[in-house]
């Protein structure tokens, strides 16, 4: 039987929203205070949703310890207490939370065996969040 298992994680990071494709004035107009030159930070919440068959022997879609370890190594250690703009991923794209959400999905795709990655949600603040379900979602 197919079910879903989800887990919420936290990390804190800074970023600055600034596009090299835009002028200074356009950046200011587009991103407002998020374009301030020295950046700012958030306490991000990442909610990772896996889907798969419930294993008959364990009653689980995926082992929680395995799940935690994968996310810790691939996501938390990479993004916690860093400046996102300096991560190689974000030299080519602006570290908006939309892009961060999609990149986290890509970094976790295929890693939460035997489950499949169903969705990544990134909460930037308590009032805004972003979800990505892969290209087909």
């Amino acid at each position: 039987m197919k079910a879903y298992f989800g887990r919420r994680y936290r990390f804190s990071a800074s970023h600055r929203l600034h596009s090299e494709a835009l002028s200074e004035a356009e950046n200011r107009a587009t991103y407002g205070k998020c374009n301030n030159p020295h950046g700012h930070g958030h306490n991000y919440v990442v909610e990772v949703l896996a889907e798969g068959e419930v294993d008959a022997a364990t009653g689980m879609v995926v082992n929680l310890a395995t799940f935690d370890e994968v996310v810790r190594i691939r996501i938390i250690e990479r993004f916690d207490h860093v400046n996102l703009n300096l991560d190689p991923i974000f030299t080519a794209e602006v570290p908006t939370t939309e892009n961060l959400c999609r990149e986290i999905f890509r970094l976790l795709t295929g890693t939460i065996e035997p489950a499949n990655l169903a969705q990544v949600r990134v909460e930037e603040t308590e009032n805004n969040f972003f979800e990505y379900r892969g290209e087909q979602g």
Partner: protein
Amino acid sequence: MIFLTRRATFSASHYYWNEAWSAVENERVFGRCANRNGHGHNYTLEVTVAGEPDPVTGFVVDLKWLKDVMERDVMAAYDHRHLNLEVPEFASTIPTSENIAIAVWQRLEPAVTAAGGAQLSRVRIYETPEIFAEYRGEA
């Protein structure tokens, strides 16, 4: 189509143990969850139904009715109980969050379907605020 969700909380104890395995294997796979004296959680249950609003009442379902069904069919059986020892479906099925989500679906689906109008869409169970499982009725 409108999706309507009702949330409820209950507290229960459980442990994880596969009778087909040795004690060593159970402890290796389930860790502290295999402690035979059990442990407990404050669970949060979210039940989502889907349907069109009734043209007269504007309701997909009456929330009070849904609350009462959840109380009668789930909370009365689960709240302040030891899931392994006191809830029939977990006598032979390990009460993981995944299996609780499936069991809650099976408990609620007949009443929601019989009422007509809305379909059960999703059951999500939070074991802690950080850990949850859900079931959407898929085979």
